């Protein structure tokens, strides 16, 4: 009994992600964004994407800065303690990037609806929010047919592609997530195609040993790619923390379009393993992993 392999390389993503696609990007805050795939999108000539994020950060900011987005759907984009996201701000304040700002639960519930094949799901939603008023294509008031209560219907969201970064997978596409899953599973369920980068490809036997860690079955995955440190400079908890030193460099780079181009040239426009050397190689990886292990409970 031999099964097909879903293993791919970073360079293969262009077989799945096409110009103009709507791409849901996993990860949340400064954690677990599929940064190796993001960098590969910028290296390749994939363009005019619509990105969907729930709580985005450098993933969205970098794609915007590199000019790969023609539209953005988001509930939150921020560099957290490092400040507001510079390219994101510039694009909206000065360059007129089209965007749909949707409340966080409406994005998650919209993805859930997309995944479960229903055009909307109701909830006791954000009545009174201007976002409901500004983006009526994502929100409708609806009455409960049993109780008459007014509810908000969140529209289904069906991305063309979902990209996420996870802890490990086997070649059949069983994916384990040990850290912050965020809305990754919901994105995978909703999307038409799915690419998962992982810290390590393991045997199916290793997957079975800890089946409770498996969050996505193979039949929901189109391609798995081994990309060690693939979330850098974000975290892939509890394996490694985000890299505050590199993020400070990023923030300097992103401070103007000119310096951002330098950042992209210096760090992104080279093979992924050269990127990993450029950000400090094995020593830096060791620092980030050690920090993730050295936790103290009270």
């Amino acid at each position, binding site marked *: 009994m031999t099964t097909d392999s879903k293993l791919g390389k970073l360079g293969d993503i262009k077989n799945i992600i096409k110009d103009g696609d709507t791409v849901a990007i996993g990860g*949340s*805050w*400064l*954690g677990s964004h599929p940064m190796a795939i993001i960098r590969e999108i910028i290296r390749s000539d994939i363009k005019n994407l619509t990105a969907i994020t*729930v*709580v985005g950060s450098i993933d969205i900011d970098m794609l915007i800065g590199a000019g790969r987005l023609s539209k953005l759907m*988001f*509930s*939150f*984009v*921020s560099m*957290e*303690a490092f400040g*507001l*996201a510079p390219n*994101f*701000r510039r694009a*909206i*304040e000065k360059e*007129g990037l089209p965007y749909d*700002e949707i*409340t*966080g*639960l409406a994005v*998650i*519930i919209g993805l*859930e609806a997309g995944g479960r094949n229903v055009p909307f799901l109701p*909830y*006791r*939603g*954000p*009545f*009174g*929010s*201007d*976002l409901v008023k*500004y983006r009526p294509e994502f929100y409708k008031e609806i009455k409960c047919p049993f109780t008459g209560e007014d509810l908000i219907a969140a529209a289904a969201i069906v991305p063309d592609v979902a990209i996420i970064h996870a802890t490990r997978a086997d070649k059949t596409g069983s994916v384990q997530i*040990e*850290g*912050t*899953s*965020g*809305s990754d*599973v*919901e994105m995978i369920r909703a999307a038409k195609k799915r690419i998962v980068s992982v810290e390590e490809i393991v045997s199916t036997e290793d997957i079975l040993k800890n089946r409770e860690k498996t*969050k996505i079955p193979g039949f929901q995955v189109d391609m798995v790619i081994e990309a060690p440190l693939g979330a850098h400079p974000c975290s892939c*908890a*509890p394996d490694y*923390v985000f890299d*505050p*030193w590199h993020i*400070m460099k990023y923030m300097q780079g992103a401070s103007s379009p000119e310096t951002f181009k330098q950042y992209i040239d210096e760090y992104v426009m080279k093979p992924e393993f050269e990127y990993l050397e450029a950000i400090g190689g094995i020593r830096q990886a060791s*620092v980030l992993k050690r*920090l*993730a292990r*050295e*936790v*103290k*409970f*009270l």
Partner: protein
Amino acid sequence: MTQYAQDYSVAELMCVTLAREIEDGDVIVLGSFTPLAYASYILAKITHAPNSTLLAYAAVDFRPFQLSFVRAESSAIRGAALMWTMLEDLNSVHLKGRGDVEAISSIQADQYGNINLSAIGDYEKPKLRGPGGAGAPEVIKMHRKMIGYFPNHSKMTFVPKVDVITGTRYLIGAEERIKAGYRPGPIRYITNLTVISKEEKDRPFKIESLHPGVTADNVVDNTGFELEIPKDIPETEKPTAKQVRLLREEVDPYGTMAFDFKPGKERLGYLNEILQKELEAIGYA
């Protein structure tokens, strides 16, 4: 008799005030990494609220941990009793109104219980594009209390009407909250000057307490909307000596909590100091 601290910072006072919002058994949701709020919840958990449940990132019911600038996520996960996706969080806590506290901050807040994390100026062509609200627009309605904290109480923040209503408490009075399937609770803002709160739709925010050394006039002068000023306003309860000791020695020895209170230009330097200490602690400096 309670022994109050003689020496504490405004950050510590705010942190302890927020910690006192936590009741034993509460379910507390931590969103973005905001050191002051994290410190508050962890302090509450190791002191008066051991049966409270903390949720952060994907971690549910995690053991209290020592804060650092980079390790909150790994610490929460390594100490968690279980792990949830965001949708599982929603299905178990948020939508059900089972959350008690998830402190938020905001670029602007107004007299109606509205917050603005979206934009200053015109929505579609803003002067400043904010980060967006994440789940805040919805959870400030759903959770039992709506707690906000503001390190810089000013008329820039507390405006008569926010430029954009990213989200709003919507259900304010106890009766309408219960009728809509949610538990009653106040809107309460903890600032660097005072604690103000609102529990009825048609009544203004009220000054609940003034931090030591602050007058009602100071608060009024820095607030862009009408406040109810009771005749006798108590002083905000000071941190106890124990609370301050725990914060400094156990919960936040790296001083991450002070980060939000540094002026913008000092932040990078302060961050590098903290990171240097973190590297030293693991022998990589």
